[in-house]
């Protein structure tokens, strides 16, 4: 880069018509592309010719014009401009500050910060808070309880929230335990592994050909008979559970979660999920150590549970 004389003075526009002609050519070209090819050709020709002339002028340096030299103040001049001559006020010492400048500095920073907070807080709230507010479980109708024979396991897939569609499809393992004190008893286990949430599979044959579809207000519910003789097994990292959902091997930190349920007009209706520490016994006489729903991989009992004292709303 060469230092050119006169760089400390304002640069005057070059007295040339070539850029104007070049611009006219470009406009003609663009308009011509829309309305007429001949007009576009004329525009392209103009742009080429004037562009060449402009480039040649620039390259040969003919456009470099010296600006007028700064005007020397004449002794006969009637008045001295404000920016010429000695300053009326002495220049402030380096680092010298005045109350007004301090006030302006503080006001600018304060107002800027306030505006930043006013703009940022609602946006951050909008990004984060919906994940914690209005979280509610949806009741799911699984169909008549006659679809669930006594002491038989079924794999049931259903849509938890019809407004969300297929993405809310979930799977549960359901067993009808028969009556307990005249009330139907069910074991309903979530298929989400208590390790990191992979889908647990039944450890035994799944009878796909006997799959049955039941229409409910939550959409289609698929019911497939299964014989989980070896309990439930997670294909991701090898977590194993018995038929009550107790962890028996692998990395899971607790048992499988379970669903609450109601019997409404002879139909099985799923409610909230809850977490389980350990299940003693089995079927309708099982004693369940129940806890608030906790995410996969999080302990619900023992000293490790101290690391998860509060759970977000589910």
């Amino acid at each position, binding site marked *: *880069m*060469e230092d*050119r004389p006169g*760089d400390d003075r304002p*640069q005057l526009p070059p007295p040339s018509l070539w850029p104007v002609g070049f611009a006219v050519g470009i406009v003609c070209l663009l308009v011509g592309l829309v309305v007429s090819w001949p007009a576009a050709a004329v525009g392209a020709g103009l742009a080429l010719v004037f562009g060449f002339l402009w*480039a040649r002028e*620039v*390259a*040969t*340096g003919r456009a470099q014009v010296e600006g007028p030299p700064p005007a020397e103040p004449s002794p006969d001049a009637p008045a001295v401009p404000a920016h010429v001559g000695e300053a009326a006020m002495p220049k402030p010492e380096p680092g010298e500050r005045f109350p007004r400048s301090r006030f302006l500095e503080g006001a600018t920073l304060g107002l800027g910060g306030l505006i930043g907070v006013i703009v940022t807080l609602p946006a951050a709230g909008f990004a*984060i808070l*919906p*994940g*914690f507010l209005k*979280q509610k479980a949806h009741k799911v109708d699984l169909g008549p309880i006659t679809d669930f024979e006594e002491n038989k396991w079924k794999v049931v897939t259903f849509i*938890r*929230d019809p407004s*969300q*569609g*297929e*993405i*809310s499809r979930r799977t549960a393992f359901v067993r009808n335990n028969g009556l307990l004190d005249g009330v139907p008893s069910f074991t309903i286990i979530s298929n989400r592994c208590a390790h*990191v*949430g*992979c*889908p647990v599979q039944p450890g035994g044959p799944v009878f796909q050909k006997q799959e049955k579809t039941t229409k409910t207000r939550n959409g289609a519910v698929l019911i497939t008979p299964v014989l989980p003789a070896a309990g439930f097994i997670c294909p*991701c990292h090898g977590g194993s559970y018995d038929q009550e959902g107790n962890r028996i091997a692998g990395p899971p930190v607790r048992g499988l979660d379970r669903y609450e349920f109601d019997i409404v007009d002879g139909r099985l209706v799923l409610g909230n999920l809850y977490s389980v520490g350990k299940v003693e016994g089995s079927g309708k006489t099982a004693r369940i150590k129940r806890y608030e729903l*906790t*995410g*996969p*991989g*999080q302990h619900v009992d023992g000293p490790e549970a101290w*690391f*998860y*004292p*509060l*759970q*977000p*709303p*589910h």
Partner: protein
Amino acid sequence: MARKRSARQQTMQRAVMYPLDWLEERSGLVGGVRYFLFRKVPSDTDWWHTLGSATLTAFLVQLVTGVILAMYYQPDPQHAHASIEHIQHDLTLGWLVRGMHKWGASVFIILMFMHMGRVFLFGAYKYPRELNWIVGVLLLATGLFEGLTGYLLPFDQTAYWASVVAININGTAPFVGPYLASVLRGGSEIGPDVLARFYSLHMLLVPGALIGLILLHLYLVVRLGVSSPPWSREAAGREPDPEPPPVRNGLVQPGPRPAGVRRRPAE
């Protein structure tokens, strides 16, 4: 002896330099770029020192291919996977651009680790470059988060369950983990908004953070200079290696010419 340029060459040079002079006069950008590109580096730098710029190149490839993919991708659970199939199988060169983005992501992460390993093994994280090491660690974490948010976007079974697992692993962090997982999911369960949330993070927020951190990283590299390797005789204040360094081309200033090699005479 410098050759005398003909009038035509001088005219050509003026035509080339005029726009650069114009830009330089108003912005100082040309000088800044020249300062950045032609700064001095130690004479004993070697190929290991190119891992940083290789990582930057990989990031730029991700940036360009990502912008193009965003023109066709639909972040909606109903159409996301179909749009990926469309890119892959229907659009001209879609397979190539998506492949570059998909495999380039792994290349970017691998190069980051290699660059980090080089800096660690060369001791280039020591005074006065500790802050640049910290910025690099933040870049690695942000780059990994970029990979996490991008993994869900194909929205197939692998993408879905891998993201479920990744979010739940975040959820196991003590105390804040459950809340962190809820923030990532945008609720207690993965729902239809998660895809758009991850897309927004992957497309806008995380790349913005990466660009900012990369600029800060580069600023610190330029300000503090390139470190010499640990075996550098020059940095240790001893006599330079008697073996003349190889002549390099490109941006690195060439070293002394080996004995016996004659400069080509001027024409």
